[in-house]
């Protein structure tokens, strides 16, 4: 029965009324359409908008297809001739490289033995599983640079995240340099750039995809570290680790609290106070500002662009309303917002586009809000983050906005207690899901050639959750926390195993190579090498001072012979090289290096009697190549359980040489490379007794039948047998 009566339930009456309205609209439409006049031929701007948009789309598609159709035979022939050799001589048609940053072979072996990683076990049993020798030092920028170029660090010039300026001993990002446009024009209060900002890649060496591209083999490269700025080649690439945020940093979070902020600025972020404005009991709002990039049009130091926002808490319902840049959305406590688009107005109609996520941490007793670093908006990139430039736009249009920051998972947020473990994990997996979507799209777009993608969640989560695997770790919290988070790393490995399973389903007869750049070990104790150097007379402080702040604040260089900077590097303050160097080059330097090697290797931890430093390598012994001179003079290989101390890495000098690491960042890999090899899995049997990460690039060239460039240090792996199929 459908007729409505006065006693019909309200929803039925509403339904009937709705039907009536729909019928009336349809009737009017029919009348209008059946009785057209000249004037009605154009039914206003609404139809115009729809017509224009759809027509333009189809027109553009048609125009492009016409162009593509006309030029296709020529291009196809050209590519065929070039690609013919590679695909004809090659032993493979498609290679899929999946990089799991920091996937540890010991843990993988353990979980496989426990039957928790069926897909990895399948690769091990029917294909290949080996420990993959990493680089010295076993640091991601170094190892992935060797991965892509097939050369040792002496040839690719990356030795750490940081390099040091010989003129002032200050650090710089080792992989990229960003400077303003070369020429500017001053018009009133504006400084107009006459050209693009200069972004220079400091990594040397040629990635294997350049050789493959030239030979006509298409490559899709997703988020491989040290690919910013992106280099031109015949394929597509989205830059990874070392892409900056809009502030130009490697990730600066913002933490807002209604409680007046006091104390030091948190590491890796900024703290702000939310100011209350109360116009009525029901409209309590808090206000603050998100900082963006420096305004290069109106350059005034320390005055970055910003966007005001307000938060209206709704404590009874555990949520808050956030208003920013004309957007308004609700956020529940303990939840991340979607990516929020931010437009920073620089003046003269120029806007710089960014993205951030909000996380509502608490509503009581104080309103607390976390805002992720402001990422470069991939759909309107302020700096080039992909090759071609439109590739990042394409991904954003296809998959929605995504994290572009190199180190997108906010480890400092958790380290500083701004995020808790749950929030950090949520963030990691949100980013991981974006990466998976990108990867599977790239896989679809690479039916032949190489599809390579690096997943970072493995590294970030192990860094932050290792303490729950190590019962004696100084940063391990309560037993409750250990029970709660003790399974996080196992769950992470299972998740990656599941991903491998899905890739195997799609890969067909392609070759799958799974690699990690290094493994992982506990980081329970920190070694403050600069403090040791000071206590042992190698590093001098200014008279009367017994400490130094960041970046050698109080160091007396005229009396300093050695200093440490970064995660593994130790430098001799060499005359003629460093601005205030005092150690003569040659035999004197060599003698000092030998002395430091011996003494550091003999260092004993009084707390447990162990040796914190396993080996100290001389750069002349481990590196060869034109950029060896830029390397640290000595590379410290810490023993298991140790790493460089937090203070020493930043050039601080304190009283303690050895100290407990009480931070959430509790697992690490910047130690003796022999202790933290990575993994190599493949669905094909590979003839490689002692594979190394530096072998990946030559293997790719060899598998596609290309000659190996003479500069490559790696040795190609031989493909054997048939591949593992999922079914």
């Amino acid at each position: 029965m459908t007729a409505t009566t006065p006693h019909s339930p309200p929803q039925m009456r509403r339904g009937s009324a709705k039907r009536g309205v729909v019928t009336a609209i349809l009737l009017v439409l029919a009348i209008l359409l059946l009785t057209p006049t000249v004037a009605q031929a154009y039914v206003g701007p609404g139809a115009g908008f729809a017509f224009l948009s759809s027509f333009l789309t189809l027109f553009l598609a048609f125009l492009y297809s016409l162009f593509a159709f006309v030029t296709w035979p020529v291009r196809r022939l050209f590519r065929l001739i070039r690609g013919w050799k590679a695909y004809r001589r090659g032993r493979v048609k498609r290679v899929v490289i999946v990089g799991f940053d920091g996937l540890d072979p010991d843990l993988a072996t353990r979980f496989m033995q426990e039957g928790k990683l069926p897909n990895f076990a399948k690769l091990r049993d029917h294909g290949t599983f080996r420990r993959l020798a990493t680089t010295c030092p076993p640091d991601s920028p170094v190892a992935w640079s060797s991965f892509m170029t097939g050369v040792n660090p002496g040839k690719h010039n990356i030795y750490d995240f940081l390099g040091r300026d010989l003129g002032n001993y200050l650090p710089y990002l080792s992989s990229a340099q960003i400077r303003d446009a070369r020429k500017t024009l001053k018009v009133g209060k504006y400084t107009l750039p006459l050209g693009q900002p200069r972004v220079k890649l400091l990594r040397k060496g040629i990635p294997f995809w350049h050789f493959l591209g030239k030979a006509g083999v298409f490559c899709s490269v997703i988020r491989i570290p040290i690919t910013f700025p992106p280099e031109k080649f015949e394929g597509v690439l989205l830059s990874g680790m070392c892409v900056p945020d809009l502030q130009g940093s490697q990730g600066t979070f913002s933490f807002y609290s209604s409680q007046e902020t006091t104390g030091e600025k948190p590491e890796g972020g900024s703290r702000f106070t939310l100011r209350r404005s109360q116009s009525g009991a029901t409209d309590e709002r808090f206000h603050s500002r998100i900082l963006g990039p420096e305004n290069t049009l109106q350059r005034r130091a320390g005055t970055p662009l910003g966007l005001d926002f307000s938060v209206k808490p709704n404590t009874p319902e555990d949520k808050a309303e956030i208003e920013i840049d004309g957007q308004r959305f609700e956020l529940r406590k303990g939840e991340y917002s979607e990516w929020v688009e931010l437009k920073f107005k620089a003046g003269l109609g120029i806007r710089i586009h960014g993205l951030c996520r909000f996380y509502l941490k608490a509503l009581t007793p104080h309103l607390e809000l976390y805002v992720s670093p402001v990422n470069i908006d991939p759909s309107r990139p302020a700096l080039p983050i992909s090759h071609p430039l439109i590739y990042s736009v394409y991904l954003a249009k296809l998959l929605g906005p995504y994290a572009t920051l190199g180190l997108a998972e906010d480890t400092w947020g958790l380290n500083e207690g701004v995020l808790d473990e749950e929030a950090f994990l949520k963030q990691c997996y949100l980013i991981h899901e974006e990466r998976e979507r990108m990867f599977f799209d790239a896989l679809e777009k690479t039916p032949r050639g190489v599809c390579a993608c690096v997943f970072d969640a493995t590294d970030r989560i192990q860094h932050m959750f290792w303490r729950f695997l190590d019962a004696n770790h100084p940063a391990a919290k309560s037993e409750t926390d250990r029970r709660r988070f003790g399974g996080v790393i196992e769950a992470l490995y299972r998740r990656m195993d599941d991903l491998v399973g899905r890739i195997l389903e799609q890969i067909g007869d392609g070759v799958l190579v799974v690699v990690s750049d290094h493994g992982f070990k506990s980081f329970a104790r920190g070694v403050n090498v600069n403090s040791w150097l000071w206590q042992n007379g190698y590093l001098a402080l200014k008279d009367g001072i017994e400490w130094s702040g960041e970046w050698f604040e109080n160091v007396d260089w005229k009396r300093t012979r050695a200093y440490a900077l970064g995660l593994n590097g130790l430098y001799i303050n060499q005359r003629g090289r460093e601005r205030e160097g005092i150690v003569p080059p040659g035999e004197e330097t060599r003698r000092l290096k030998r002395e430091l090697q011996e003494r550091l290797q003999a260092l004993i931890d009084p707390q447990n009697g162990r040796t914190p430093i396993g080996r100290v390598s001389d750069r002349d012994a481990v590196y060869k190549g034109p950029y060896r001179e830029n390397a640290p003079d000595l590379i410290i290989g810490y023993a298991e359980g140790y790493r460089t101390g937090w203070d020493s890495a930043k050039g601080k000098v304190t009283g303690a040489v050895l100290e407990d690491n009480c931070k959430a960042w509790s697992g690490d890999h910047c130690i003796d490379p022999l202790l933290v090899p990575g993994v190599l899995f493949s669905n094909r049997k590979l003839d490689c007794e002692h594979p190394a990460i530096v072998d990946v690039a030559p293997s790719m060239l060899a598998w596609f039948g290309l000659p190996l460039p003479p500069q490559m240090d790696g040795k190609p792996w031989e493909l054997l047998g048939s591949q593992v199929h999922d079914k």
Partner: protein
Amino acid sequence: MLRLIDGAFDLFFAPFRAANPAYGLAVISLLTGLAAILVFRYVSNQDAMRRVKNRIHAHLLELRLFPDQLGIVSRAYGRILRFTALYLMYNLKPLAILLLPLVLLMVQLDLRFGRMPLEVCDSFILKATLAGPGALDSGSLRLPKGLTLTAPPVNVPVQQEVNWRIRADEYGVFLPAVVVAGQTFTKRVVVSKEIAPLPVERAQASLVEWFMNPVERPLPRDGPLQSLEVSYAPRSIDLGYFATNWLVIFLVVSLVSGLILKFVLGIEI
């Protein structure tokens, strides 16, 4: 209702009555663009439209990024077509809502800008179409002061038409009357230099007549007269360098203003 709308339009165009018609038309077109944009903002599914447009954009970029991979390019074309159809579907709701007011608006604009009013000394034809066979003579037409019959009526029996040639002698709104079978029917004739609604035809009552001529009452249904028509000259609006039909100006100004306002107000269309 329609008379109310007509009155509202009279009021709206009152300031522009003596000016170049382009001004009044530009203002109404601009407001129409704004109204259409706002309807899209509040009626359409903005998120869905944004998503669909992004997908179309992505697949267009696919053509550029992977031009040598025939499979990908073919799939991209398929997806472009699919998402364009979906985009048009998302447009239907706001379009359906816009359709009725826009038709009313355009009828009003056509009345005012579609034709030129008569001027003094202009001659025009008053055409009466009879409902059945018959003929009318000069005595069937009663002209008010200000209009003069300049020739005897011309009967076209095959088309049941009678045509009178009339000259306008003074400015004003006149109601010449035609007497058929003892009944008198008038037709509004405007002799003016200003913008005014100029219904060309007064016809028998019908839905179309009700829409198209809100200024005059329809002729009685089944009456002896089918329609009365005045031959106004079509109007071209002078834009300085060229003159064009009002519809072209309306189309361009409403579309351009809508597209500009879309960016200003951040509305997806």
